[in-house]
């Protein structure tokens, strides 16, 4: 496992918070799934093939993220109940400048 981690806060639709140490280089989807945070399905395991790992990025952190790829953009178009700050968490890598990021989870991924 990578030595360095960043702290990511996942907030379930019901309000429950999970503060997780995610190894740098891992995706924020993996950080959630590997710690059993409910609300992220990630059926495809992070291949950007299923759009079941949607998160809402806290507005304070939106600018720090790398822009969406065309693939992510179009996959998100078809995810349920997206918002302007929706992202697919499998496409966001944990990097030092995201230490402390806050993500909210949708009610359902399907």
């Amino acid at each position, binding site marked *: 496992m*990578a030595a360095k981690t960043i702290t990511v806060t996942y907030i379930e639709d019901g309000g429950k918070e999970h503060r997780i140490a995610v190894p740098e280089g891992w995706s924020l989807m993996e950080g959630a799934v590997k710690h059993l945070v409910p609300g992220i399905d990630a*059926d495809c395991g992070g291949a950007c*093939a299923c759009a079941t790992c949607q998160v809402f990025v806290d507005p304070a952190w939106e600018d720090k993220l790398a822009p969406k790829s065309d693939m992510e953009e179009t996959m998100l178009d078809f995810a349920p109940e997206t918002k302007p700050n929706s992202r697919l968490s499998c496409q966001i890598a944990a990097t030092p400048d995201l230490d402390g990021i806050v993500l909210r989870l949708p009610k359902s991924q399907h």
Partner: protein
Amino acid sequence: MPEKIVIIGAGQAGAQAVQSLRAEGFGGGITLIGEESWPPYQRPPLSKAYLLGQFERPRLFLKPDSFYAEAGCELRLNARARAIHRAERLVEMESGPSIAYDKLLLATGTRVRKLTCPGAELPGVHYLRGIDDVDALQAVFQSGARLAVVGGGYIGLEVAAVAAKRGLDVTVFEAMDRLMARAVSPQLSAFYAAEHAKAGVKLMLRTGVEAIQGTDRVEGIRAGGTVYPADIVLVGIGVLANDDLARVAGLGCEDGIIVDKNARTGDAHIWAAGDCTRHVGHEGHAIRLECVQNAIDQAKHAALAMVGRPKDYSEVPWFWSDQYDLKLQIAGLARPTDMIVQRGDPANRKFAVFHLRDGAVAAVEAVNAAPEYMIGKKLVAEGRRIAPERLADLSVPMKQMAA
């Protein structure tokens, strides 16, 4: 006595079943039996990012180690079931005491089809199914090495793409007249053949392998009457359903364990899920699938049935493959007799092929084309009828097709 569920097979379906059984409120005991030394992990990255060295091993595991203990699931690794005694409801193990069950889930998956030609046992002949296979392959993946890939299917081509990227000299031998013939349309086969050729991969179609040559290890491969020098052979010629335990136990099997829409076998105490099953697909006839989607969805349905809340399984299957920077996404099951409608130009490396059956969308193959895939999957599920010329018209956005 609390109820006891035993799951044979610690892969994607087995792990999903543990999660779903608990999510559905099952409060009894669960034992998960796996032959490998690893806890359940994802297989798709093995032939892609993991082989490329861009995805370290801890990321492969589906659950954290603590998951199984927290879920009250006894995880038995390096353990192999020898027989199922249905009358006694016991799983006999190759070593150690038998395990009693009230309900049994078979999630035994598949094993690779082995090459049977002369020389097939020589050191240097590799297969790709598990972590250990890839670790062994990686150890010999040196730039400049000559790699002969036997079989131009998903596994062979994904490995070829990684190998080309890592500087190996790659030749693919395929007995059929086109690549991925079992899985994709001729249009896709032609497109991928051109992409592999561009990357420097040599393709030998209609070329069956006759022998692996070498004295102490692989030195060459004889195919189509010609000997090609080779340092490494990777065989990807398909997989076989692990249905032996079920068959010997007297359960119905036919290239897979036969189950109904609730993942039930002919025995009221035994269910099966994932690659190892022959089940009634979304089109209403018996199929066997090899994909993550089926492992996950069928395991969820098995869990529902096992807790007494059966729900019919009829999801549209989906698949993906990563080769170079191309993401292939497929939904539905195409047939050779389908009418083919192409949307977009392959020259742009972004296009889709739709399969219409009696006017309705039956399958879609999308290359770097997420809207076509996502909307296409919906169209398949609904059996939507769309005029071919409209489907091919790029000025009509995919979103409007579904409206």
